[in-house]
């Protein structure tokens, strides 16, 4: 569905359903340079189980218009504005990578609006390498290549997708290639600049699930310890064999985990 947020047209995938105020809601927030399609499978699941599902395209991403937001806080403010526009008082938030920081920031600054939090492929702070910052800022394809290759476990460079017939590396690359110039660069800068994550984590009051990939090379589980310690008793699941792209690499284990909190 399309809805106006902050003067710009915003797109949310809702499984073709109208938002029903009587139902509980789940908001899915994608990572850098991505769009709502990374959340299609779990969104379909929770829609069938009676939730309002709202898989967003952040501003400038996918089908959402407007300039991309430049910081995690701005993106978090946009999520709150979206909830307002949809007349949703409270929702569970699931975010991947950059999206997990956005979800964290919303939960910290607007605790009454967040029923539960699922942080997927997450760490805080989330520093970005100089090479990715430079190449994404310059709109170089090499930024897509680096994020795609390091976004998958070493084993999954060779495929082995549980989703029959889909070549994971190719599908992720094509999705990056669809992003508008400047979008990935801004996302990477936002990740890199968000230094408030640990402090914000202490403000979270809702149940928290963290799902990490055991073979994640972008946000390895060892880097997430500080965030885990700062959050209020998060349920931490480390999925074997998966890299950073958990929705593709371990979709069924991820869904099993998400079902416990969303």
């Amino acid at each position, binding site marked *: 569905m399309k809805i106006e947020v902050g003067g710009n047209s915003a797109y949310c*995938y809702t499984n*073709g359903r109208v938002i029903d105020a009587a139902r509980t809601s789940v908001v899915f927030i994608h990572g850098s340079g991505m*769009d709502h*399609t990374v959340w*299609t*499978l*779990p969104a*379909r*699941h929770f829609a*069938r189980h009676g939730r309002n599902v709202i898989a967003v395209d952040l501003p400038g991403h996918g089908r959402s218009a407007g300039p991309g937001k430049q910081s995690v806080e701005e993106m978090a403010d946009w999520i709150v504005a979206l909830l307002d526009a949809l007349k949703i008082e409270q929702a569970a938030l699931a975010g991947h990578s950059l999206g997990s920081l956005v979800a964290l920031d919303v939960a910290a600054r607007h605790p009454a609006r967040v029923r539960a939090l699922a942080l997927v492929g997450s760490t805080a702070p989330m520093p970005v*390498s100089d*090479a990715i910052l430079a*190449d994404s800022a310059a709109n170089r394809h*090499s930024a897509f*290549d*680096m994020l795609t*290759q*390091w976004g998958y476990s070493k*084993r999954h*460079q*060779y*495929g*082995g*997708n*549980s*989703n*029959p*017939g*889909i*070549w994971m*590396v*190719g*599908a992720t690359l*094509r*999705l990056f*290639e*669809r992003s508008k110039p400047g979008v990935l660069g801004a996302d990477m800068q936002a990740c890199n600049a968000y230094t408030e994550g640990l402090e914000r984590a202490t403000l979270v009051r809702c149940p928290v699930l963290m799902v990490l990939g055991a073979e994640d090379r972008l946000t390895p589980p060892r880097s997430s310890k500080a965030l885990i310690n700062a959050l209020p008793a998060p349920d931490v699941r480390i999925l074997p064999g998966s890299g950073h792209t958990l929705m593709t690499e371990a*979709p*069924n284990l991820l*869904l099993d985990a998400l079902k416990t909190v969303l």
Partner: protein
Amino acid sequence: MAGVKYPAFDTLSLHAGAQPDPATGARATPIYQTASFVFTDSDHAASLFNIERTGHVYSRLSNPTNAVLEERITALEDGVGAIATASGQAALHLAIATLMGAGSHIVAARSLYGGSHNLLAYTLPRFGIQTTFVDPRDPEAFRAAIRPDTRLVFGETLGNPGLEVLNIPAIAAVAHAAGLPLLVDSTFTTPYLIKPFELGADLILHSATKFLSGHGIVIGGLLVDGGRFDWEASGKFPTLTEPYAGFHGLVFAEEFGPSAFITRARKEGLRDLGACMSPTTAFHILQGIETLSLRMQRHVDNTRRIVTFLRANKQVTQIGYPELEGHPDRALAAQLLPRGCGAVFSFDLRGGRAAGVAFVDALNVFSHLANVGDAKSLVIHPASTTHHRMDAEALKAAGIGEGTIRLSVGLEDVEDLIDDLSQGLRAAAKLTEVKS
């Protein structure tokens, strides 16, 4: 590009899509010879049917052995996904049925495999899909033939039987300017010789019966999605951009983005049309692909030697191999097919139909049959076999002479192949000497 290096072609040929079997540790990809797969509970079943979880339900829709093959060809072609089908023809039909319905139109190169030509020229019109056939060497002819109801542009990397080299970049540009995808049949070339997606094609099909399997033991096809075509921007593909009543209003482009086409082809096309591949066939094709680059290089090396040999023989009046001086596509072949123009080509013999028959009958190593892309060398004389009902005039219109011979050069020792061909040429020469 600091430290980024994707696995290369030969490594992908051996490993893409495959993992040691999680149940047994088997290193080779097992043949999952089963029709169905057990659900753990009712919600698991519902979630598989509703595309919430990944996995297998029924082998018409997907199968673990086939899935390895599908990933492998996609990796080699640099696409997003693929579907293994019962044959190359099934792959072509699946592509068309996914993109269009009655009232649609296709622009296709004139020099197609006979089966593809039959489908487009005779069968699909009964279902309301028309095709205009154009000169494969003329991108402007493709442009001129595009109509408001056109939904697909189609050609073969190397035409049949003349080996016209499809100018993929130019024809893709024509198709894209009209908001249309370009489907390329790369059966004769395989991803070892050409990568159509890198050149602008949007969809690729293979008759995997040929060089991919490589041993003439199975029938199978592959349809590969490059994932770059913007179906929504085109606005001509409601099967991908509008709610599908056959799947609870699913909009494939909305939910699956770059994988929209191949997902619809599986969720609708395999489900409803049912032209799936047997997992045993997929296993055989996987074995073939493991040695694809080694075989293709040898096929090409042997072909080049044989072409050189035939050029020096007075009995041969013409050879249609794009690397030869005088071939109209020589420059384009050097640009698009630097590793070679495959191992299937035709040449003309003096002496017409009778010489062709004498030549074929005298061969021992080359097998006389209707196939190409086998490890073993093959030969056919179209005028006395596949096109035997045609008179000289009709043959000429089809680009075939009465003395035209088609070879599919195999992997034998090339000197033995040349000896065999020499024998055939002597038999043909004897006939023409007697006649004169």
